[in-house]
């Protein structure tokens, strides 16, 4: 649009929504439907951007707001996960290992290898960095999609000059 948009507040609000909804147990299952909460965060960011600018936003503005909200959401997911790692993180990793055990034909020796790793020193730091990278990529992609959807929903259409209505047919001559 004009390059003067302020994305800060919309991105923070959208990112908070997408990040928090993605980490609350049970509710976070909504993300299984095409990353629903991330898309919702992007749409929310565009809603607030449109409110700021009286609906004068382009799809590019929406995409940018959605992308930034996705990045904020990824940071929030990482922060919440890093706080909860001492309580949940290692349990979640063991859950992943349990899932792996169900596959027939898993390469031998891997189970012991992972078990050894889980008792290692840098596991928490590695988890935080990996989650930040992966969720940063995924949240920004689906946030952008949400932003585009939001711009389609909330951007006001440009008023165009309309042709005047056709003249009524001439009245039949009175005899």
């Amino acid at each position, binding site marked *: 649009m004009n*390059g*003067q*948009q302020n994305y800060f507040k919309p991105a923070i609000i959208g990112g908070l929504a997408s990040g928090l909804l*993605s*980490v609350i147990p049970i509710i*976070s*299952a909504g*993300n*299984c439907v*095409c*990353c629903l909460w*991330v898309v919702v965060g992007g749409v929310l960011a565009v809603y607030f951007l449109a409110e700021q600018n009286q609906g004068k936003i*382009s*799809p*590019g503005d929406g*995409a*940018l707001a959605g*992308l930034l909200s996705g990045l904020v959401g990824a940071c929030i*997911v990482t922060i919440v*996960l890093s706080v909860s790692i001492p309580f949940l*993180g290692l349990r*979640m*990793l063991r859950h*992943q*290992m349990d*899932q*792996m055990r*169900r*596959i027939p*034909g*898993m*390469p031998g020796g*891997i189970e012991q*290898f*992972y078990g050894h*790793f889980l008792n*290692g020193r840098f*596991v928490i730091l*590695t*988890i935080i960095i*990996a*989650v930040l*990278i*992966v*969720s940063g*990529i*995924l949240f*920004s*992609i689906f946030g*952008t*999609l949400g932003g*585009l959807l939001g711009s389609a929903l909330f951007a006001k259409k440009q008023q165009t000059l309309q042709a005047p209505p056709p003249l009524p047919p001439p009245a039949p001559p009175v005899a």
Partner: protein
Amino acid sequence: MVKKSASEWTIEVASLRRLLHNAFHMRFRKHLYVIFLIGTMLCPAIIWLLPFLLQRSPFYLIARLAFSALCHQQPDRSFVVNGMLMMVCARCAAIYTGLPIGVFFCAPVFKWVRKLQPSKLQSERIPISPGGVAVFISALPAAFELAAEKLGFPTGNLSRFFATFPFGTALGLIAGHFLRTTSLETERTIVMTGALRQLKQGSVT
């Protein structure tokens, strides 16, 4: 040396901030399509290649944990690649794989759509957009597959993948089209602004 007052400093800082904001904003918008394309290409690369690259690495488990915020990762609904479970389920894998294909091929596809003259297809009473129709039609196979699964028909990971793949591709096509248009418009604006500045300075005759 002339000392500047506080108000002058405030104005200078504000103009510098505006300059930086505009430069970042315009450059970022100009490359938005390419950034999105790279991002979408990273997703299938990660999910298809990690089971090969990290088979003997503990990072595999951590990568799976990182994807767990966005997918249920049920083992019976995920592909097994190289003896390892994929990072995401078959349906998510289809969306992640279809997205970059759609983004990459959006330009020729929309060129072809424009030849069809979509304005003739649009109704005056019902506002139908070609993009909306494309997403709706592409979601139908996934919906039928889901319904078949719920009704007890035999389905598998391959049917889940191929039924959802068109939906991912359609999403990529539409997102790619909008982002490409934005990038091209921004580039045009930058060129026009530069030309205007040159005209003002009188360097262009």
